[in-house]
């Protein structure tokens, strides 16, 4: 069950992400990494308590230390205003519209996914790519979030088991271990 999107929207999103980051000759793609899950969780960040906006610190536990990333930060009233406005849009609320209306990410996804067509997940790859290219603004947004979902810390719901990092030979967060002076200075 997706957190925020409908089943139909989620299926479209998964197919779109898989086009952006296909599984390819042993390379993990959006599907394996859970990129669509990352985006859906972000859109529904306020269905969690605390909201899934900022992972905690100072360590994830992957390289020692406690699993602090797993506990998300509480938001202040101002943080919540900012993030609700960004996600939900300003919705005519005066406290969100001090510089005019803001279209939220939820709306942009809802519209962008609808424009890809209800049959998107079923059409062939070249047609999917053609439809994706038709809306450049949505494509840019989707790409930004695909990159986060593939290469960001797994606690946000993507990069499952660090699969995005390991394929590219990147260690991710390294505290509290860090790197030795020799690792830094030598080839």
């Amino acid at each position, binding site marked *: 069950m997706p957190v925020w999107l409908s089943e139909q929207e989620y299926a479209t999103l998964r197919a779109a992400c898989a*086009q*952006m*980051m*296909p599984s*390819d000759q042993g*390379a993990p*793609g959006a599907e394996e990494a859970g990129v669509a899950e990352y985006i859906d969780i972000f859109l529904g960040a306020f269905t969690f308590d605390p909201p899934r*906006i*900022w*992972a*905690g*610190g*100072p*360590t*994830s536990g992957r390289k020692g230390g406690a699993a*602090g*990333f797993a506990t998300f*930060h509480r938001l*202040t*009233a*101002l*943080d919540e*205003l*900012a993030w609700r*406005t960004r996600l939900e849009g300003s919705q005519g609320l005066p*406290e969100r519209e001090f*510089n005019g209306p*803001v279209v939220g990410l939820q709306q942009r996804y809802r519209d962008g996914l609808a424009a890809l067509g209800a049959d998107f997940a079923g059409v062939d790859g070249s047609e999917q*790519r053609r439809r994706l290219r038709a809306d450049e603004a949505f494509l840019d947004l989707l*790409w*930004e979030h*695909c*990159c*986060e979902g*593939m*290469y*960001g*810390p797994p606690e*946000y719901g993507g990069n499952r088991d660090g699969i*995005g*990092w390991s*394929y*590219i*030979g*990147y*260690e*991710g*967060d*390294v*505290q*509290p271990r*860090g*790197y*030795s*002076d020799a*690792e*830094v*200075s*030598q*080839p």
Partner: protein
Amino acid sequence: MSADAVIIGSGPGGATAAEVLTRAGWSVVIMEKGRNHLLDPDDLTKPSADYSNDEIKFISRYFLGPDPLIEPRAFRRNAAEGEHTHVGEVNSIPTTVGGGGTHADGKVPRFREEDFRLFSTHGPQEDAAVDDWPIDYDELEPYYAEVERAIGVAGRAGANPFAAWRSGPYPMPPGAPMFGAVLSAAAAEKLGLHPYEAPTAANSIAYDGRPACNNCGFCAFFGCPIHAKGDPVALLTRAMATGRAELMAETYVSRIVTEGRRATGVEFIGPDGITRTMDAKLVIVAGGAIETPRILLLSGVEHPALGRHLMCHFQTIVVGHFPDVRLHPEKGRAVTHVHDDAMVQDERSREAALGAGLPWFRGGLVEHSGGGLPIMEARHSPWGRGHAQVMRDSNLREHMWAFIMQGEDLPYATNTVDLSPSIRDVRGVPVARVTYEPGRHELAASKYHGKILQSVLEEMGAEWVLHTSSPGVSYHGIGATPVPESRHVIGTARMGDNPDTSVVDKWGRVHSLDNVVVADSSVFVTSSGYGPTLTLVALAARAAHHLAGTKPG
């Protein structure tokens, strides 16, 4: 509580003032509009555990602010462009307890003697208000020495042949050089340049109760999870430990209340959204060189030079591609080597300046650096089939090395900070509008020194080299955004002895207000080509010692 001083802003400038004053027995209230993620909420004399190696949190999601949705700025290149051309992030420096000190990777070189005497040393420039500072290097040296010890600077005296004199060694030796910097420093040396280990406010050994840097690589743009970076956590924890400092986070100062030549208090909006005022005997303004003029303008301070002469550092960015070597820039601090040569005149640079129709020009500090973050790399990689392979080959991260020259900006009266006529922050207050474009001096210096940097990368073995700048300008054409990305903001309330031409005196005191002191880089007369932080911190220490009647030690 009626404190001896109210300090606006908890960044390096405000934190330094707080530390020096509380050490001298003063009581202070620090008002900071951002949230506290720096100090342990249960014990403000200790650092917190909120920072982490997390690219989403710090880069994509504004963990340390400012969030452009609620605290935007407006931007235009010049008045002819109309009210503004961009609203959002403009030279964003964190809005959080600790200010930009939390994000910065902390290269903290001192200025040199001539940086305080630009007019006497080199003479005037058309259109620019080039001037000498009302103080010189010798006067500031004891404060440089004090703050280097206070924040903990790792460096090697004598490593930089151009450096100004110093009264003692650095408190710590330099940390580990990055592999890429070892290569670029060797190439630079071969071409006759003088690279050296960047003096850095990150512990190379355990120091002052904080651990040595463990090279985690999430340095610039991130808070340090182990607090090996000392600026300004060392100063704030020490101020809090005196018991004479009160930290009011999430507290936005909307106005300094004045009566004639005196400030009587500050008006502020607390975390509950309610506007209150607090009496103040003395107000220290340390909001940074964009927010400080905003506060002074909102407070009704009038001066023809207030908000003028905004300087960033015009950045020349020269990038080389090294297909055969993995440079692993994710290991280590963001920058471990720099060189000063572009700030030193020689016959060829003098000729180049004359050739460009200028009496002289100066470049800036050149940072040797790579980029180590995968989300950033991915965004610049193609989507679709082949993406994963492109990322695995990692041409933009593992095989790229760059020089960033923080070019000296001259002070132009047309580069300004004022109040936006229409854009508001979340609290309904007019935001700062930045009007900025580089002048002929910056462009000519960039062009000339960019070519030299290009030849260094070629010497290092680059397959190809790309030369760009921030802000983007037409002759580069690449990444041509007009909004400068520099996080060095300077000028806007310049110091001087003449109250007609300067906003503050040589102690940072506002000429027209007897008990308001500015303690950040707003007061700089010229920008030099070095990061402003150590100099603004030394100036803040000097101003605070002057107020308290104490001496640096």
